């Protein structure tokens, strides 16, 4: 069976697109071949900066012959129906056969599809794949109309058998398929022809092209670490950079160079970022000092002077870049030390955050107010939290962050420290953006937590207040990430707060536009809302006191419309569900806990859910659910029938049998255990006590007829069942559990 080799040779393909493109080529060509009846044994794809290659082994020589029968209308059907069938089947009238069936004589079209030779199919499939290739961005060139990522120059397409190799005849927009390709652009530019994949790979290697991306990456990494090791240094690992650099060269040559001594005092992150972003250099660290002292660059050519010229050029470019970085660093330090962080925050009033949400400065004011209010909840000093929030985004105006946006936060820490602010403030500058994703570390220092939480809540409430919510896959302001950040900050730090309170307060702050009309009364009201809710007694007292002045914002606060907050709360709940599901907690357990009051206390909610999920796996868990369901089913039926809710007043004096009395006693005993456990939020103990009711419940149902003739007895028994429902429903709404 023949092997197929395809190479699409082009001008330089962006590094970030190569791996995906090789996969797409393999997927689309093999799909197309299989769909046309050509099965194969094995397929592998490769990419370099100038080529996508696909090698398929064990391809069928031709597709199998196929015979298809299609049932048509009856022979006495109207002429129109028969014509329609002929058109659909693509056959002529005389090709139809008639067959006797139960319902009469029926036309059949028998269509023979003879197999086709592989070259014909390959040519068709490959042309189609080239013309519809899913590049993230493609272009036209010259006078042609073909689109490719960059100009496509050659198509190598051969089928190899024992008898030899044959070019698959085909052409796309004037590019004829052939059996030739080229090697390295500078070291082996002459064309050569190949007869098989093995021949191709071997000749490419001789022509200074390493076909496999993994092999190039491995070569780079091994050579780099060895060169560093020889000097007692180590290369800072960076997989993203390694993959990118492996896509920039066909023949990697690793060169290790020195960084000018005058730059070694720059923060290591600055050195690393500058070298990586601008030059695609790896950083080389001295493990003894932790400092970055050298760099590794990867050339695409083995020069006769062993790369001395290339290295000198790269050093020169690096020096110019680092001179810029040093210039920014020194200017920023001077500002931080002489004026302080306020020099930058003042400038942020000119920077728009969002046209409906004001400037970055306005945003900082809001975050600072909320951070102050959240501080007691997270155990932070309120003054420090406010101070940290005020400077946390100052570095956005610094020269260094303007040049390297990815250093935001980190530079804030350096500059905050340099300006003499407390270390907690510096830490908050660095950490308040975190967590950025599901695996990113969560800040734990209280001041950092207060600012991080306030930052994310301000973003969420702001976009909710202006009705810019994520829809489907569109989430341009990364609000899902912010919501997950809130949840991780709360849960992983065990913060106990009912999230509806800060949400309400901050939404009001947005709606009123607090910065425009600052008022101490308003701040006091919003503070009280964070502490105890918009409808809390103290909040209400403050609102009433403000009535006399009748400020313009009063109606918004007094008649606070909870619908926006409710919507945001359910968004946060959705993120919480995803988070808990990732921890292995099933959706019904989460729903059962969400149905409980205080579901805005995410830490409590998670605690309930974790306890219930674990308890459910035990024998007692089964007892709890079964005992509860048995009581609840009968009770619910009776309630539906009677149209009333039985919820109160079961009296042991109406108990007739010992089993009934025993259930009263069991409930009393259980409740005595449950109450303190619930107060201590020891849900496992509470649920164990609930589960302990099962024997008494079972015995009760064995011995006692709930629906007694005597209506007093019946009501009493239903009220007794409702005690079971209430008792067992304190941790979660068990009716929502599956099974």
């Amino acid at each position, binding site marked *: 069976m023949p092997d197929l080799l395809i190479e699409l040779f082009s001008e330089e393909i962006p590094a970030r697109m190569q791996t995906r493109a090789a996969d797409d080529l393999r997927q689309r060509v093999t799909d197309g071949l299989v769909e046309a009846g050509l099965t194969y044994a094995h397929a592998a794809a490769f990419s370099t900066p100038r080529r996508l290659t696909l090698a398929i082994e064990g391809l069928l020589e031709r597709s199998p012959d196929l015979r298809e029968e299609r049932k048509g209308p009856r022979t006495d059907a109207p002429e129109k129906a028969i014509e329609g069938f002929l058109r659909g089947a693509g056959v002529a009238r005389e090709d139809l056969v008639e067959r006797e069936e139960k319902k009469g004589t029926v036309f059949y079209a028998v269509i023979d599809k003879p197999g086709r030779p592989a070259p014909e199919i390959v040519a068709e499939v490959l042309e189609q794949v080239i013309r519809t290739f899913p590049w993230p961005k493609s272009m036209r060139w010259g006078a042609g*109309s073909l689109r490719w990522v960059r100009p496509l120059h050659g198509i190598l397409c051969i089928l190899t058998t024992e008898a030899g190799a044959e070019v698959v005849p085909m052409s796309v927009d004037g590019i004829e398929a052939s059996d030739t390709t080229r090697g390295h652009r500078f070291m082996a530019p002459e064309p050569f022809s190949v007869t098989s994949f093995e021949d191709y790979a071997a000749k490419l290697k001789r022509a200074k092209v390493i076909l496999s991306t993994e092999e190039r990456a491995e070569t780079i990494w091994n050579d780099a670490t060895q060169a560093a090791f020889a000097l007692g240094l180590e290369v800072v690992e960076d997989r993203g950079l390694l993959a990118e650099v492996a896509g920039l060269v066909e023949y990697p040559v690793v060169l290790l160079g020195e960084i000018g001594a005058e730059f070694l005092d720059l923060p290591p992150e600055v050195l690393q970022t500058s070298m990586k972003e601008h030059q695609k250099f790896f950083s080389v660290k001295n493990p003894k000092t932790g400092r970055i002292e050298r760099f590794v660059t990867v050339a695409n050519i083995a020069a006769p002077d062993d790369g001395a010229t290339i290295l000198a050029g790269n050093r020169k470019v690096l020096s110019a870049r680092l001179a810029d970085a040093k210039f920014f660093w020194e200017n920023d330090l001077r500002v931080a030390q002489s004026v302080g962080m306020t020099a930058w925050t003042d400038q942020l009033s000119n920077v728009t955050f969002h046209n409906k949400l004001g400037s970055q400065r306005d945003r900082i004011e809001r975050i600072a107010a909320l951070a102050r209010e959240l501080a007691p909840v997270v155990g932070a000093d309120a003054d420090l939290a406010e101070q940290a929030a005020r400077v946390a985004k100052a570095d956005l105006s610094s020269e260094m962050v303007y040049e390297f946006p990815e250093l935001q936060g980190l530079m804030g820490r350096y500059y905050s420290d340099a300006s003499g602010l407390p270390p907690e403030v510096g830490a908050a500058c660095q950490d308040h953006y975190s967590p950025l994703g599901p695996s990113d570390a969560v800040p734990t220092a209280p001041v950092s937590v207060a600012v991080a939480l306030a930052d994310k809540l301000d973003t969420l409430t702001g976009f909710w207040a202006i009705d810019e919510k994520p829809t489907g896959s569109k989430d341009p302001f990364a609000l899902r990430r912010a919501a997950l950040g809130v949840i991780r900050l709360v849960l992983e730090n065990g913060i106990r707060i009912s999230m509806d309170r800060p949400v309400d307060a901050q939404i009001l702050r947005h709606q009123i536009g607090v910065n425009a009309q600052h008022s101490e009364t308003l701040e006091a009201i919003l503070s009280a809302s964070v502490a105890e809710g918009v409808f809390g007694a103290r909040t209400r007292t403050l609102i009433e006191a403000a009535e006399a002045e009748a400020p313009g914002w009063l109606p918004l606060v007094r008649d606070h419309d909870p619908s926006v907050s409710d919507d945001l709360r359910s968004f946060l709940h959705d993120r919480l569900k995803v988070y808990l599901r990732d921890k292995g907690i099933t959706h019904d357990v989460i729903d059962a806990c969400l149905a409980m009051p205080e579901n805005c206390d995410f830490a409590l909610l998670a605690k309930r859910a974790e306890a219930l999920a674990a308890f459910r796996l035990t024998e007692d868990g089964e007892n709890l659910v079964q005992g509860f369901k048995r009581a609840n089913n009968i009770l619910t039926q009776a309630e539906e029938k009677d149209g009333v809710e039985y919820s109160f007043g079961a009296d042991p004096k109406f108990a007739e049998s010992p089993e009934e009395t025993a259930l009263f006693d069991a409930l009393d005993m259980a409740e005595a255990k449950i109450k303190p456990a619930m107060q201590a939020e020891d849900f496992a103990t509470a649920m164990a006590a609930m589960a302990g009711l099962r024997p008494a419940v079972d015995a009760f149902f064995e011995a006692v007829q709930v629906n007694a003739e005597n209506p007093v007895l019946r009501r009493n028994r239903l009220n007794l069942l409702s005690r079971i429902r209430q008792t067992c429903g304190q941790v979660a709404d068990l009716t929502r559990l599956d099974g």
Partner: protein
Amino acid sequence: MTADKPRSFQDIILRLQTYWADKGCAVLQPYDMEVGAGTFHPATTLRSLGPTPWAAAYVQPSRRPTDGRYGDSPNRWQHYYQYQVIIKPSPPDLQALYLGSLEAIGIDMEMHDIRFVEDDWESPTLGAWGLGWEVWCDGMEVSQFTYFQQVGGHDCAPVSGELTYGLERLAMYVLGHDDGNEMPFNAPDAPIPLTYGDVFREAEAQYARWNFDVADTDMLLQHFVDAERECQRILDQPEVDPKTGRRIVMAQPAYDQCIKASHLFNLLDARGVISVTERQAYIGRVRALAKLCADAVVASQQDGAAA
């Protein structure tokens, strides 16, 4: 293989001129207006529209007022030179032609590491974009290589290949000077040897002062509005000239006003009177003019009139 090395800034320019002339380009002179980059020259923007083949190369003095450093920076000037090549349709061997030009100015391909690194070009003010690379020589960006896909909102068909060389940076590298002001402008052994700084340093200081602190912003704003208005007025004229009776679409005079507006915007930006939010609006206004001019070029070509 090893080419002899150029000795001066002008030597590099002359070699590029000779090289591209040999390859068949019309060697044009700079456009006689203030522009931010060689792309603004009508020989690139306007000629990249429509089907007519075209090949040109030229030096374009360019101005970026915000880059002024009073002549003190070793590698930044508010006035600098770009070398621009534009060929339509882009020839299949454009990469090879380009590499040949590097050899022509003394860069030996065996000794250096030349790389084509993804860089998609976009000009928000011209409503133009293309795909291509920045070309690195030993880690330094020496050129921009672009296949134009759209200009002024119109698809480019055929596609033009555009090469832009930053001449100062390239020359500093080839001549081995870390401080651009120190590199020889003419032959170092000429009777009166001149450095790049001798030619430009004083003017750099003067323009930096004017750009940053002195330019009359009210006047610049007025000029911007005037240029904008004149551009539209020109294009609003009937196509047939009442005097000659000929159909004359004045796309290029209108485009001059667009270039003017663009440079005035850059000056206003350097004076720091354009806020972050206004910036986008100004860029949008210039782009609207570029689009009108491009529309005029395309419309006049479609009707079979001479471009």
